């Protein structure tokens, strides 16, 4: 794509390497169907962005998991966010993706158009800067994400305390991935044969939290990077484990992920946050000990303590089948409203909002192979 190579990117996109891995995948999966869930939304995005489904043999059935932070936020929490954003003088800061997620009455983008001061930021530290620059107004940061982003929220919170900022608040919606994976493994009719594990989350939490998957459920796990050859190699590792009759947690992303994760980051989370007894996940329902809230000693910076929020559970729109998609029961295009009533411009469900959401990724990047397959009645090749 350019004259000069981009290190740590281009070497993982080389077509000849891709071809040799896919040949081996084809050999090891011949004559059967292997269902592999990529847990992380970053993997879903990468699979579609690079057209990997076209390169994989039909025997590999990729199931898109719940690891998209935007997708799993339940509608009631968006209602709460909008209620906070509408309070007098509040400056509500959020990652751009969250702006378009529908609540029971419009999105944050709609609230902004109606006069709420909603601003998008790229990191919690940007939100902290807004608070520093406007000391007379409350500034709220909409914290979302898995263990990958929780440490930066924690570090920002500690910085706010150190600077004695009294107008900075965190609306904490951080979730933890392991209970969600366990909920999927325990769900009736579960048909997943192996997991491509979330590389970025494991950078923080290490490999150990996933060891229960092979130990208790006898399913292989390969913790994966995000470039095309990373993901393909992880799929191959899962097949090789199966061929050996083994099930372990393998670390494909060893250039980044350490066995014990990032101790300092884990300490930051432990210092500032604690597990909620339960938290609602979109599509998966209430999962115990699956989310984080600020510890009581940080109540002065906790938006849930400072602002009145409705805090009610809102049922998803009837037509929306994000829950089934997040559990891997339905493919994105099997949803009743996929591509018709629900599109990236006018999303009904969260899976259509984030570029990491299975539906948005499929709508944006993947339709072509489906059309090809339908037209030719076979697995699509290069057009």
């Amino acid at each position, binding site marked *: 794509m350019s004259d000069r190579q*981009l290190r740590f990117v281009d070497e993982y996109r080389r*077509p000849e390497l891709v071809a040799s891995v896919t040949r081996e995948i084809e050999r090891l999966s011949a004559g059967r169907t292997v269902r592999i869930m990529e847990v992380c939304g970053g993997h879903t995005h990468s699979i579609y962005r690079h057209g990997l489904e076209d390169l994989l043999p039909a025997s590999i059935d990729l199931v898109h998991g719940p690891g998209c932070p935007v997708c799993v936020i339940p509608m009631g929490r968006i209602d709460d966010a909008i209620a906070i954003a509408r309070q007098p003088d509040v400056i509500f800061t959020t990652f*751009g993706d969250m702006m378009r997620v529908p609540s029971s009455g419009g999105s944050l983008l709609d609230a902004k158009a109606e006069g709420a001061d909603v601003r998008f930021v790229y990191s919690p530290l940007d939100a902290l800067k807004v608070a520093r620059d406007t000391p007379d107004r409350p500034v709220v940061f909409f914290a979302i994400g898995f263990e990958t982003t929780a440490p930066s929220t924690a570090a920002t919170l500690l910085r706010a305390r150190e600077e004695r900022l009294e107008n900075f608040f965190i609306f904490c919606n951080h979730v933890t991935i392991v209970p969600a994976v366990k909920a999927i493994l325990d769900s009736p009719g579960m048909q997943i044969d192996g997991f491509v594990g979330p590389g970025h989350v494991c950078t923080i939490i290490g490999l150990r939290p996933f060891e229960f998957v092979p130990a208790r459920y006898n399913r292989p796990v390969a913790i994966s990077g995000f470039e095309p050859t990373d993901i393909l190699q992880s799929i191959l590792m899962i097949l090789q484990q199966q061929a050996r009759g083994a099930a372990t947690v393998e670390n494909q992303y060893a250039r980044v992920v350490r066995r014990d994760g990032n101790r300092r980051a884990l300490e930051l989370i432990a210092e500032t946050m604690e597990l909620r007894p339960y938290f609602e996940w979109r599509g998966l329902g209430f999962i115990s000990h699956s989310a984080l809230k600020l510890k009581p000693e940080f109540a002065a910076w906790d938006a849930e303590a400072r602002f009145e929020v409705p805090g009610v559970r809102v049922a998803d729109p009837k037509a929306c089948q994000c829950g089934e998609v997040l559990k891997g029961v339905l493919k994105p295009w099997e949803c009743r409203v996929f591509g018709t009533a629900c599109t990236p411009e006018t999303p009904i469900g969260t899976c259509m909002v984030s570029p990491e959401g299975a539906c948005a990724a499929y709508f944006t990047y993947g339709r072509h192979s489906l059309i090809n397959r339908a037209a030719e009645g076979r697995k699509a090749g*290069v057009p």
Partner: protein
Amino acid sequence: MSRETGHSLAAQVDRLGRAQVARRERPVLREARITLSHGSGGKASRNLIDGLIAPALGMEDALTQVDSVILPVTTGRIAFTTDTYVVSPLFFPGGDIGSLAVHGTINDLAMTGARPLALSLGFILEEGLEVEVLRRVLASIAAASAAAGVRIQTGDTKVVPRGKADALFINTSGVGLVAEHLTLSPAGAVPGDRVLLSGSVGEHGIAVMLAREALEIEADIRSDSAALHGLAAAVLEAAPGTRCLKDPTRGGVATSLNEIARAAGTGIAIEEERIRVLPEVRGACEILGLDPLHIANEGKLLAIVPPEQAAAALAAMRAHPLGRDAAIIGEVLDQPGDMVVLRTEAGGSRVLDMLVGDPLPRIC
């Protein structure tokens, strides 16, 4: 002129006469900041327009006094376009709101095959704007218009209260002449046509984004803002059968190609490895999760050319300073209709869709 000072009637007449002469002299803008009176239409407005704007642009006095300019037309047809510029920040590496306003409107004309004749310039200024900032923008407009050989022929200035605009907005309209035989239209693309791109993509959007202080990414990326009428004319001369030209601005190459595919009812397939992206732009896009094909350009040209003229068009692009890195990046297909497909470097393929939402508001 009181009796106490003892001035005579003759002295009074003399004073009034001198004041009358002074009034006829060129007005001077003395203030350091724009005030609401500069938008009043009265004397302060004249000071701003005739004391700063018109001389900066080399406009004759007569032009600022008339309600519209009269342009002679010979043969051909008129192309007429308008565009408004609200970019933030006003100055960024590789350009500013002034040069962008000149280039953008010239490019809109050039994409229809028009030879640009004249531009208008409408300012909306925020009360409190430093005149020095306006002076810099005017100098940039003058330089861009001189370099492009297209003059500012008419204009307008309004001032709005502080907080009702962000420093300075510009609207430029442009008229150009289109040769009698020439009809460029995205609907004219037919299967087999080649897709040409004049150079690397994504620099403008990323340069503006990085110029905003919120993102602390340091990279030497300059906007590609440039007037494309010369390059467009060179392509049309070398490849008279050219179906359409497009400058991939907001929404990037992906959005422009989708517009062509939908207008023509065809498919378009492009090769990721043939699209040049500077390593700095790629790096910034990888960090921010953006696709360079969705990022705006302000000095790039897409051309859809029949296959037998593609080599000539490519050679003409490469011979022009703005098209040195031009490449044939893909082809128009009959299937799949209304859709753009990207063959990825990894060897897969995917749909390349239009941009949804706005990752970078206010980039032009």
